[in-house]
């Protein structure tokens, strides 16, 4: 069963292609760990034009990653000591601390310990914006999914949806609105 609520794919005259593209999209989204963040997905392909379009609704609301999410914060002599539990975010954490307190106030005595010379607790400082990372990964996935040779691309992202279109020929406003109309009719079907 698909983990998505809706996953529709329409390729006129190419049943096999539609079936295979469903598998490819699932494989790629799973590889990049994006599948849980997409609620609905509509894929429209017209191989005679040729054009490839994807419209998706996102399950948004990924909160930014805070210092207290990645490290245990404790008061120590001359500041606060952070014990980092998730080393994956070490680089982002140091960058955020340097930006806020300056390099001279941040010390790393051992691999997973960071000491910050400050009076106020840094636990509410944002380490990284996961939403932005997700959007980057999503764009990467869409470029991978699109058939090769479809070099003219356009990607429109809003707060809770994305629309990706790629074609061999130049993309003109008329074509884009035509494809959007097709996808809207898929949504209403």
């Amino acid at each position, binding site marked *: 069963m698909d983990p998505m609520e809706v996953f529709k794919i329409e390729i006129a005259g190419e049943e096999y*292609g539609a079936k*295979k593209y469903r598998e*490819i999209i699932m*494989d*790629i989204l799973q*590889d990049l760990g994006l599948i849980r963040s997409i609620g609905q997905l509509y894929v429209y392909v017209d*191989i005679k034009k040729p054009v490839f379009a994807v419209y998706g609704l996102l399950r948004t609301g990924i909160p930014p990653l805070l210092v207290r999410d990645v490290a245990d914060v404790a008061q120590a002599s001359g500041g606060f000591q952070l014990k980092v539990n998730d080393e994956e975010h070490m680089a982002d954490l140091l960058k955020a601390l340097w930006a806020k307190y300056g390099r001279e106030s941040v010390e790393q005595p051992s691999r997973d310990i960071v000491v910050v010379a400050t009076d106020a607790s840094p636990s509410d400082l944002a380490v990284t914006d996961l939403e932005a990372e997700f959007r980057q990964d999503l764009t990467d996935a869409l470029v991978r999914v699109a058939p*090769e*040779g479809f070099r003219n691309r356009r990607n429109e992202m809003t707060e809770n949806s994305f629309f990706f279109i790629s074609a061999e020929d130049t993309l003109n406003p008329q074509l884009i609105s035509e494809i959007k109309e097709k996808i809207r009719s898929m949504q209403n079907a």
Partner: protein
Amino acid sequence: MLEPVMFTGGVYKHDLVMELVEDLGGYILQKNVTQSEVILLMLIPTEDMAAMKALISDLRGELVRAPLAGTEVAVVTPTLAIHHLPHTACDIAEYLRRNGAKSNMIGLARGAGREIAQINEYESMLINEHDAAVFIFGNFIECIRKKENLYRNISVPVVVTGGPAIPPKDLPYAFEYVPAVGRISHRAKKATEIGNLDNIIGAVGRALDRTRAEISKDPLTTSPPRVMDAVREQVPDVEYSFSPLPIALNLNGVRVKLPYDKYRDAVRAVRFDEGVSLGEIATIRPSRMKDYILVRIMPMSETGFIF
């Protein structure tokens, strides 16, 4: 009749196998040593196969038939982009290799797309130096039909692979079409996927058999393995070539992986026991692959004799 086989076994005493091949009048096409294991691709006279089997069972090695040994197959993808690599193209190339063929992967410079796909003269000539070619296409019937112009001018047999089932009459320029391959974003693991790879090997085997049958109507003056042996003996520098297979065999000649300008005269002067030189029975010209030497043996109708 020489039978192509592959020996896999330990390095210890594998020289006994090599000696036996020489004693039986067979040829060693390729030797690969990987740490403690050795893989030998050889041609052995059919009537002496029992002797070889006995020795190899003593050595606890493995002997399997390698139907594609002594041939070079091009695995052609429209580009070297993520859409074809690594899964489909590498699986097919590796599977061809396991069956004894020398496989070369070729990505076209401008093969992407449906309307804009093209192949240039250099690429087609490079593919024509092989014995057969496998073209890997995607999942759309329309695109596979349209991309026929990529292989229309290829003179060696072309096996086309793709996703959907297409009747053979729709692809008149393809030697055979193997469906259910297409664009896949995972490695071939399931039995059905491995079965599809077997279908490709089968199609390539039939394509090579057709070429062999054509050659047998006007046989070559001498056999390519014999030329390989003579070149290896009389142009010793070939052993210093960095290529894993310094002399690649084709059905109608060999490719010597030495610079053309420096070594063409040495290759042309290679002599056989019968008193002829290689230059008299074969054309020697620059290969499209790097600066290698391409040797094409002339048929009996041109030289008037056979040995």
